[in-house]
């Protein structure tokens, strides 16, 4: 799958999840580098810690290569039923889920072994802005 298609499917699935909560605002930010990319999704829905933890668990599940490539290909194609974050979790390197002053921010980190999330600053900035 081309990188563009891959990113589109991830955005589709994560946006599906966020839109299920009917937010007034949703911002999707993408920062690409050679070895990886950072996708941040910010919405205006405050969530309980329990739900945040559940999102974290789904997005940071153990590597399952047999699931990621095959079943992960359904990400972004779900038009019936609820969004499934585990489809994303199998395909990303890691995810941070934080509560902002008036909503939630989900950071997805993708990349190869040389990928260094430290080179991205958007996470800190958006936290401050929020």
């Amino acid at each position, binding site marked *: 799958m081309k990188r563009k298609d891959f990113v589109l499917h991830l955005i589709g699935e994560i946006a599906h999840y966020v839109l299920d909560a009917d937010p007034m605002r949703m911002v999707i930010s993408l920062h690409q580098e050679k070895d990886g990319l950072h996708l941040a999704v910010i919405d205006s829905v405050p969530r309980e810690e329990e739900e945040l933890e559940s999102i974290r668990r789904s997005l940071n599940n153990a590597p*399952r290569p047999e699931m990621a*490539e*095959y079943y992960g290909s359904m990400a972004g194609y779900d038009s019936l039923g609820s969004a499934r974050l585990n489809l994303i979790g199998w395909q990303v390197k890691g995810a941070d889920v934080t509560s902002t002053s008036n909503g939630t921010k989900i950071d997805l980190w993708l990349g190869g072994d040389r990928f260094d999330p430290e080179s991205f600053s958007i996470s800190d900035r958006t936290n401050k802005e929020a």
Partner: protein
Amino acid sequence: MDPKDRRLYLLLVCILVAIATVGMIAPGTEDASIGATLSAIARLQIRPARLVNDFTRAESPGAALVNAALVAGIGLVLVRLNGVRLAGPTVAAVFTLFGFGLFGKTPLNFVPIIIGVSIAARIAGKQFKEYILIAMFGSALGPLVSLIAFEIGLPPALSVPVGLLGGVAVGVVLPAIAFVMLRLHQGYSLYNIGLTTGFLALFAAAIVFGRGGQLPGGAVWNSEPTLLLILLVPAVSLALIGAGLLQNAQAALRGFVSITSIPGRLPSDFMDMVSVPAALVNMGVMGLLMWGYVIVVGADLNGPVLGGIFTIVGFAAFGKQPRNVLPVIVGVAAAALLFGHELSAPGVILAALFGTTLAPLAGEFGFAIGAVAGFLHLLIVLRSGAWHAGIGLYNNGLAGGLTATLLVATIEWYRANRQERRAARAGSYAASADGADDEE
């Protein structure tokens, strides 16, 4: 290896070795020697494998059990060698391989497809483990290898190489089709590779029979199963329940109860979502329930029926639970009774068992939709086998995939339009957007 994974491997290896040993020493034929069983296993490799060829009758129950254990064992070794976690999907694949090893899959017709999928992985620049599920389930096209190699009358020097190449060729194209099929039904049919292999089998049959003519169906169905076959499911089911309860009985039972509220849409790995012991209990309970159903309707516990039950046992770690399979079986039974089929008839009992591929529809949308799915499934599956001349072993997967696609598309269309209509009534932005479109 994680101790939990090690225990699960040990359990599956013990089950397969026990079955193979019993198959070797109790073949259930007049000539009950180990040598006779080995000869029978060798003959199974070169006999036709298209639907429905019950190996328990074509050769002997013992030979069929050893063949099935061999096929499942190869699957288990593949999982281990590739460092893939033994969990819901891989356990489902191993049990499915075992089940179909009783009526169609053999090591000889299964391995070329695995090689084909591994070539596809290489072409796509992926690791084989990323395609391992497609490879394991994709062995449903094994009968194509047997058909070309031993049935259509090619010169002997040519037939086996061409058959093996045919298996490799379908293996190469399997992944590409599997991804597309998955999106058609959006994970509401558990046997996605059934839809994929059925679709490919349509083309394979058209090519093989391109010069016209068809081979006779020649169904082989064991209507006098031995006690060994009758008691196999309860024995394995009780072993699974025992293994689950042994680890922590209370937690396993609590987990089992929570599994019964999971809709089961692909991919629902119960071993990951709940726990391994709870999934083992669910597997055992499902085995006993399905075995009870077969006994109650008076169907034969032969190779294909046992194949159906063992496939359900495997998928009870990956999407099936008592509450989501019941509506589908009710739907199949209702259709059978309405159209004058006996519940124990071969096509009907297989549809009731394998039709549970549609369980996620019941789990997600309720009893009525599940029953409608089962009803439609029976009607379509009784016809679909002829479309591909029985080359695709997962004929119910093909019919189930088509049924799920029909229902998912209809439900999706209905829900989307109902939502839009409601929004229009409420005067929301959706209505204004429609209005704007109209003006343009």
